[in-house]
């Protein structure tokens, strides 16, 4: 599919799109707490991504925004308007669902116009706004088709057009791209970012895909077991995860978690004391302050683990490993390294190529590494 031509979107004046969750909780029948004591402010015009594994409460949070679920405790407000008891039809929101949820008994044109007809928008206005959004999403030729005649990507475009045509105060997107294939997903992602830039309307996007979240978010809210664990811009979360779980969840490649303990001359890594690395003073004081006998966990992202040929790093006490497997990813190479019975992963640019079986010297900088408490998993620095 060709990228659609660029049509700027005419934006009307909008209601204040800021949102506030104050101590919001949702308990389902049988006592399951889907969301616990959520405090969250979403700014007007922001694209906030709620990220977490399935069952973490992100969809329940979205459903509370939509009015499909009522908060059990706390207060949800749009602007300064209390929303707990406002039904979905009075919230001026548009929603795109994972299952797409178009009306099978209507054609594309009527699906797109449904929300406007319900709100008694005039026929001419509906026609004008429909033709605007179908140009943005390049679906004009599909207007008279039935939904079951469309491909998955086309259905998703129609679903987005249906939301966009409404010009709501708030867009809610519930894993909208998860049923699409990888290339279409990337394409829809960039379209969404462009649309958001043009409509400047608040969007809340739910996904379990950290790559998608990193790609589109102004801010990410990482959720787990009904709680908001960390909230911030994608790079902040990537660079400073609050705990081991966030560090493991965010990042294209699984992070290396290395057992470590303080020693007189530095940090002994991998638990068996085979290698000792000099340690920065902040890490030493942080670990000593936490007082668990000096043992802790070091998180090093594969892209921050540096590899060098042994000849270039002749220091006898250097950290050595053997290349165990190699995957060429295109722009990068992913290595699995065997070191003293442990497997670590490293990602390097393609400029640096090693063969399977090569001995390499590995290292990382403390500024790139994360230091976590062994027991709680919380970041120590």
């Amino acid at each position, binding site marked *: 599919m060709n990228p659609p031509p660029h049509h700027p979107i005419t934006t009307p004046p909008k209601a204040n799109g800021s949102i506030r969750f104050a101590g919001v909780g949702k308990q389902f*029948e049988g006592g399951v707490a889907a969301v616990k004591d959520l405090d969250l402010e979403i700014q007007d015009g922001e694209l906030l991504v709620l990220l977490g594994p399935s069952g973490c409460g992100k969809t329940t949070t979205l*459903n509370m925004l*939509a*009015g*499909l679920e009522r908060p059990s405790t706390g207060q949800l407000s749009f602007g300064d308007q209390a929303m707990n008891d406002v*039904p*979905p*039809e009075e*919230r001026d*929101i*548009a*929603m795109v*669902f*994972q*299952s*797409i*949820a*178009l*009306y*099978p*008994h209507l054609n594309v044109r009527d699906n797109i116009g*449904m*929300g406007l007809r*319900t*709100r008694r928008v005039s026929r001419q206005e509906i026609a004008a706004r429909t033709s605007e959004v179908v140009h943005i999403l390049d679906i004009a030729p599909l207007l008279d088709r039935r*939904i*079951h005649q469309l491909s998955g990507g086309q*259905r998703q475009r129609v679903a987005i057009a249906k939301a966009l045509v*409404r010009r709501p105060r708030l867009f*809610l997107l519930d894993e909208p791209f998860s049923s699409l294939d990888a290339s279409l997903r990337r394409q829809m992602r960039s379209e969404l970012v462009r649309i958001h830039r043009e409509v400047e309307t608040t969007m809340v996007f739910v996904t379990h895909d950290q790559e998608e979240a990193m790609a589109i978010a102004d801010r990410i809210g990482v959720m787990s077991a009904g709680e908001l664990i960390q909230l911030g811009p994608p790079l902040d979360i990537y660079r400073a995860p609050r705990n081991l779980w966030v560090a493991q969840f965010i990042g294209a490649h699984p992070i290396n978690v290395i057992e470590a303990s303080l020693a007189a001359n530095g940090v002994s890594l991998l638990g068996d004391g085979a290698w000792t690395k000099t340690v920065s003073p902040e890490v030493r004081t942080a670990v000593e302050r936490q007082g668990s006998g000096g043992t802790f966990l070091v998180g090093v992202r594969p892209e921050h683990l540096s590899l060098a040929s042994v000849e270039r790093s002749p220091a006898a006490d250097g950290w050595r490993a053997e290349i165990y497997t190699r995957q060429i990813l295109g722009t990068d190479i992913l290595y699995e390294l065997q070191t003293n019975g442990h497997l670590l992963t490293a990602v390097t640019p393609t400029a640096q190529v090693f063969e399977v079986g090569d001995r390499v010297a590995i290292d990382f900088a403390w500024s790139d590494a994360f230091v976590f408490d062994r027991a709680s998993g919380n970041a120590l620095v």
Partner: protein
Amino acid sequence: MNGRRLLIYGFAALLVIWTIVPIYWLFNMSLMFKTELLASPTHLYPHEPTVSNYTRLFGGTAIGPGGAELPVIGQAPIIQRGLRNSLIVAVIVTILTMVISLPVAYALGRLNFRGRTAMLFAIITSRSYPPIAIIIPFVLLYSQVGLQGTVRGLVIIYLTLTIPMIIWVMTSFFSSLPRTVEAAARVDGNTRWQAFYRVILPMSWPGIAVATAISFMVCWNEFVFSQFLAAGSPAQTLPPAISTFFFQISQPTEMAAVSIISIIPPAILAYLFQSRIRSLNLVDPL
């Protein structure tokens, strides 16, 4: 063709014969004079086909094979009235059943509320005994309140048969529809009630078609209640009217003609709704 396929086709053929042959035989009989029906060996098709069994039911006269005029069918007025009554009762009951059952089934199928399971249980229990078991109290009640032998009375009692059945069928149908479509309708600005009639109902045509056909056929075929509450009255429906043939002089070919007529309305309904049912995919409405 391998043995397995042969077996499948064999069984399919058997099933078709099993279903079709009795109806064919009835049709065969309805086109014969009584003298030909009694011929030996039996005729597998009418050698002298006649429509006189049909025409005479609706006031026509006909000359028999012997050259004499055939006798008048004594039950003809009862049959005509029964047809009319059956149509009126079945149509009224089906419309009322749909109007009442669809919202109830929607609530039971899509909403969570206290007592939902108990209600479903009560509804299915009300269909768990045979009608004959409760006929005597109904006869007494009906004669006291003046519903005995009235179309109104039949409509009321038939609703007790159809409503639980249709609620049951449609509850499972509604609960099988994807939940997000309704959520989408709400977000699109519809109240719960508007979402029901603007989105859920139009999406539910296949289920509603099936339910309509079931409701109509239950009324059309019902015998016990009509026999006890309306037999011999001006409100008598077709099934008890047909049964009056058993108590008169033997008229097998005329009875066959009435039976064929009684098959026609449900057959038309099934044919009409079959295309409806096929036009949408029940499993995946998208």
